[in-house]
């Protein structure tokens, strides 16, 4: 098992390197370069040349890449082209909002959706199961901003609670104050991950339910509730952890849309601004942060799948 996990970790490291190359090359094929953008249209060729040397843009591409990568590993993201501010300080102001919303979504959304999904698997074909399946089939395909619009209409327009945007700073707020502060973004993202989680956890439990040892338990006369909670659920834990990690990885897209929708500053709004102002240093840094989070969550998903499956744990 450890060999397999180590191999998977190795692949993870290679993936991160490949991702860094993709991001680096992607931000290098642009017309014009960082020095030109930073100095503006009126810069003399001599100025641009001097500045290129200072930024290291006259070096060969592979050397630029290595310099950038090692600086990134040391935590030095460089200086923003658009605002001339170190990127680490731009991030420091905003990363907490993104982290709060993602973590709170995970804390609230995951247990509720898993409970709903497992409950649906306990009574397959019941009215509850069918209604839940229909709702999750519908929501799984709806865009984040549709869910957000529905929530704003119901809670802000009709019930008159709160505001259609997130106003004010989250600083110094306690756990429950934070939930209230980010109520709309968190609820939107919960719906986004819930629809997938419900479907997949239900499928994972039902999948185990069709195995011979469950049939044996049924024939033995074990009560249905006990079969699911003691026999099926334990074997479905692996696939379920896998599903949870995958869905948290999908949150990356959701967070971008939700931050823009509810108009509060976070890392996602920062990268959208960076794209609009073509601030490539900022895109490189933030792109790496988002992609690494994603890769790490995917890695956890894979390792959970390996660790929980005896057949993978002891390969023949």
């Amino acid at each position, binding site marked *: 098992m450890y060999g397999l996990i180590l191999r998977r970790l190795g692949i993870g490291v290679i*993936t991160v390197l490949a991702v860094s190359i993709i991001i680096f090359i992607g931000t290098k*094929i642009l017309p014009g370069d960082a020095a030109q953008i930073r100095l503006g249209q009126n810069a003399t060729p001599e100025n641009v040349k001097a500045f290129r040397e200072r930024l290291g843009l006259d070096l060969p591409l592979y050397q630029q890449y290595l310099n950038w990568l090692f600086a990134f590993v040391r935590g030095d993201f460089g200086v923003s082209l658009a605002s001339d501010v170190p990127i680490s300080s731009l991030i420091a102001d905003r990363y907490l909002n993104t982290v709060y919303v993602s973590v709170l979504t995970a804390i609230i959304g995951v247990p509720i959706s898993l409970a709903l999904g497992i409950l649906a698997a306990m009574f397959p074909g019941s009215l509850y199961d069918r209604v839940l399946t229909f709702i999750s089939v519908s929501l799984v395909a709806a*865009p984040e901003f549709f869910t957000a*619009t529905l929530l704003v209409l119901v809670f802000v327009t009709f019930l008159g609670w709160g505001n259609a945007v997130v106003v004010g700073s989250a600083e110094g707020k306690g756990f429950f104050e934070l939930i209230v502060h980010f109520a709309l973004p968190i609820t939107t993202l919960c719906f986004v991950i819930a629809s997938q989680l419900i*479907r997949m956890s239900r499928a994972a439990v039902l999948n185990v339910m069709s195995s011979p040892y469950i049939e044996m338990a049924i024939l033995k006369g074990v009560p249905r509730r006990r079969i699911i909670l003691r026999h099926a659920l334990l074997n479905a834990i692996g696939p379920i952890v896998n599903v949870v990690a995958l869905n948290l990885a999908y949150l990356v*897209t959701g967070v971008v849309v939700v931050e823009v929708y509810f108009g509060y500053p976070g890392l996602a709004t920062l990268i959208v601004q960076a794209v609009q102002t073509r601030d490539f240093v900022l895109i490189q840094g933030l792109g790496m942060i988002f992609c690494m989070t994603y890769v790490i969550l995917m890695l956890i998903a894979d390792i959970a799948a390996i660790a929980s499956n005896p057949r993978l744990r002891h390969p023949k």
Partner: protein
Amino acid sequence: MSAPDHHEHIVAPFDASVSFDELPDAPPSQAYWPSATGWIGIAITCFWFLIAIFGPWLAPYGENDLPFPDDYSEFQASREGAFLGTDVEDRDVMSRIMYGAGRTIGIAFAATLLAYFVGVVMGIGAAVSGPRVDMVLSRINDAFLSLPTIMLGLVVVAAVGSSIPVLILTAGFIYATVVFRLSRAIGMEIMVMDFVEAAKVRGEGRWWIITREIWPNARMPLITDFGLRLIYVILFISSLSFLGLGVQPPQADWGSMVRENLGALQFGESKLAVIMPALSIATLTVSINLIVDDVSAHGGGKLSKRM
């Protein structure tokens, strides 16, 4: 009980026209008949595809026409001449949705076709051209698959700017990675099946094997996956447009309409300008998903689990 009678009951009831020395050309395909939810999905999807094709002719105004030139107020409610109200710049919401339908669906459809073309060619290529090519292609593919799609989109838009061809190419190549994996897996799985072996031994040509042995078996997973991919591409394009990085104004597109009119939720007299485009995307993607779910339930329901 006589022997021939006994024999008759063991053999599965064959169609009278088929005898043992005259096998059918292709495996008998089960007819698919949609269920109630399937029909709802088909009806709504057809409705949007028709609007996408004929929208510009059906729309009461042009996409940037101002139906009420003397009225400068934003986000007006529905009234005579503007059934769904007017938007932030006093344009008719319904006309813009009808123009936007063609753009949103057209871009997504073209990108999905491109993804399928690239993905299937590369995937089948990887499946048939030996382990070395397969490994190189698969590793490159895995690197792209391990990136969040929206980040790839952002990097491309930042590098070359946003236009409709760029959107189609970007979405097409991003989603080709998933198609590559699927078609490679299907190709490899079917190529080693006994019935393909049997066809080869029988001396059937390559074309016969592809069209009569592989395609009937690969058809259902590929068609349902096409539907799923189309949903993801629509969501991807709309998300980019919503972020202001997709279809650029003044061209109408459902995602960018939501963005432009977001203020209506707070200040507007009418909120239709932001509800209707969001609802359009949702009804389209949800109805396609209903069809996909229905078709894959018919085929054993494996795809609906995998989603």
